[in-house]
């Protein structure tokens, strides 16, 4: 918990190679096997999704089920991509995700900086509010949020959805980033300011680069929240071409009955962007969790 974020990533790599377990050096093949078994069990649903998505319909319905692919086909993907609104739904999902991430990072960093660097009246109250509002389940607020957005003329519009998601990811964003800002030694900033940087310049040149792992972890969190959400988008967005992929996937399910090949292809397509982003930043993720989320 004391690793400063700047060294976070390399710190984790170092730890990975030489874990601090007291049982170092006494590796048991039984434990390795147990670890692999657990990994295989956890991975099986994903494997089964991919296998179903890529195999022809008659193999999907084989009895007994076959666990290795015999023939591969793209027919399910062709069907999924062929649904009329698919690309519009992708566009909506991307806009909602990117909008939520960008705005929450921007205003969340400002608030996190204030909380980490300044003592001001009302600071403690703000911290309590930020931590407390995370308890409020989104599903419970659908009715008043809907009323509010319809008064503002923002129903069936992507900005309305982004605004709502923003508020639900902001508390955790601020809290996570606060930990990262606090871990940057204030002396670094002061030194930069002594050398003639403005406060903004010191922030941009000194603090921001050291915040990178925190920003990555935070944007991942915001993206996943925005990508996962279903109910609110379902209530707020009535035009088919504005709905995100989560709604598309559900409509797919009812539209195709028990066409599991098509459904699994759709599920694969829905999961792909987030999985790609995770793969890109997974190194940073552990570092981010170790320093930001846990450090107060």
């Amino acid at each position: 918990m004391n690793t400063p974020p700047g060294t976070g990533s390399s710190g984790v790599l170092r730890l990975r190679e030489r874990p601090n377990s007291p049982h170092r050096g006494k590796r048991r093949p039984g434990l390795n096997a147990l670890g692999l078994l657990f990994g295989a069990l956890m991975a099986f649903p994903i494997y089964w999704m991919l296998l179903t998505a890529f195999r022809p319909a008659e193999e999907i319905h084989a009895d007994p089920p076959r666990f290795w692919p015999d023939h591969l086909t793209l027919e399910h993907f062709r069907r999924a991509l062929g649904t009329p609104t698919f690309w519009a739904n992708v566009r909506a999902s991307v806009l909602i995700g990117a909008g939520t991430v960008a705005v929450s990072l921007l205003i969340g960093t400002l608030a996190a900086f204030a909380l980490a660097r300044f003592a001001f009246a009302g600071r403690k109250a703000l911290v309590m509010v930020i931590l407390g509002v995370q308890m409020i389940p989104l599903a419970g607020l659908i009715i008043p949020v809907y009323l509010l957005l319809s008064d503002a003329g923002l129903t069936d519009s992507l900005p309305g959805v982004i605004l709502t998601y923003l508020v639900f990811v902001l508390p955790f964003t601020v809290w996570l980033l606060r930990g990262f800002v606090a871990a940057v030694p204030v002396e670094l900033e002061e030194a930069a300011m002594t050398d003639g940087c403005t406060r903004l310049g010191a922030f941009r040149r000194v603090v921001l680069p050291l915040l990178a792992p925190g920003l990555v972890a935070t944007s991942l969190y915001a993206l996943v929240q925005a990508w996962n959400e279903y109910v609110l988008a379902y209530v707020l967005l009535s035009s088919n071409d504005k709905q995100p992929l989560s709604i598309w996937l559900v409509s797919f399910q009812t539209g195709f009955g028990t066409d599991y090949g098509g459904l699994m292809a759709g599920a694969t397509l829905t999961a792909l962007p987030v999985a790609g982003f995770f793969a890109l930043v997974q190194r940073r993720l552990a570092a981010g969790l170790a320093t930001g989320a846990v450090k107060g």
Partner: protein
Amino acid sequence: MGTTDPQPRARRTARRRVLPYLLIAPTVLALAAVLGYPLADLVLLSFQDMTRRELFSGATPPWAGLAHYRSILSDGFFWTVVGRTALFTAVCVTATVALSMLVALLMRRVAPWVRTAMTGVLVAVWAMPIMVAASIFRWLSDADYGVVNWLLGLLPGLDFSKHNWFENPWQGFAVITGVVVWGTVPFAAITLHAALLQIPVEWEEAALVDGARGFRLFRHVTFPAIKPTAVLVTSLCAIWDFGVFNQIWLMRGGQPEKDYYLLGVYSFTESFAVNRYSAGAAIAVVTVLMLLGGAVVYVRQLVHLGETE
């Protein structure tokens, strides 16, 4: 501002005093507008009687006082749902945290390549959107061609062919618990493992020298060191599981039977399926109040962590 800046000191301190408020202003405004205001509106709504007519005409709904709360709290079905939600949360949280703790401990003791493989799988599962996870589990537990039925059928004496998991809500909830636990274990295990990595090697080595082994070592040395993280993970899981909505909604095809109602689903269907918006609001208010219990533990833990920083 450089030190050579000729700006008067008083103005600089004044700016310094205003700056934090400027920085938090966007966050505070957004929270007040899209969270604070609706929350107040939710409470107000629960004391009124909003129907479809008022929703579309924009007229002020008639005052209903405590009527909704009275009818909810005296309704046996509401308490059934509360009990079911509590039990569901307890089972999911226990399973998630216990499994994640074992996995995190195991990850410290396996060979590096096995650890890399485990981390890879956990991150991949973590990246699965909830809707995708629910679709996969629906397919795995499918009555006709699901792998789960086939696997269970291999066991002697069991016949699971064409078995419908959602006919009996207990079995249905077993599948839903499976999705929820599968989806939360990665976050919990990776976070706990990250916390385990922060324990100074010397602590456990000293305890090993003193003869502590196995469960005693865990209870007296390892666990106390990661307790703040464990409490954090547990309360976060509890908050998420208490509010589970999507998984049930999806696995029941958008029309959950009454046997599958948890508080979130109940409030939503009251509002949007039956159009009793105020009754739905009252259920949501009661849900939020119940969550405050979990909130207190969570906030106190976080504030405590922040102070000992």
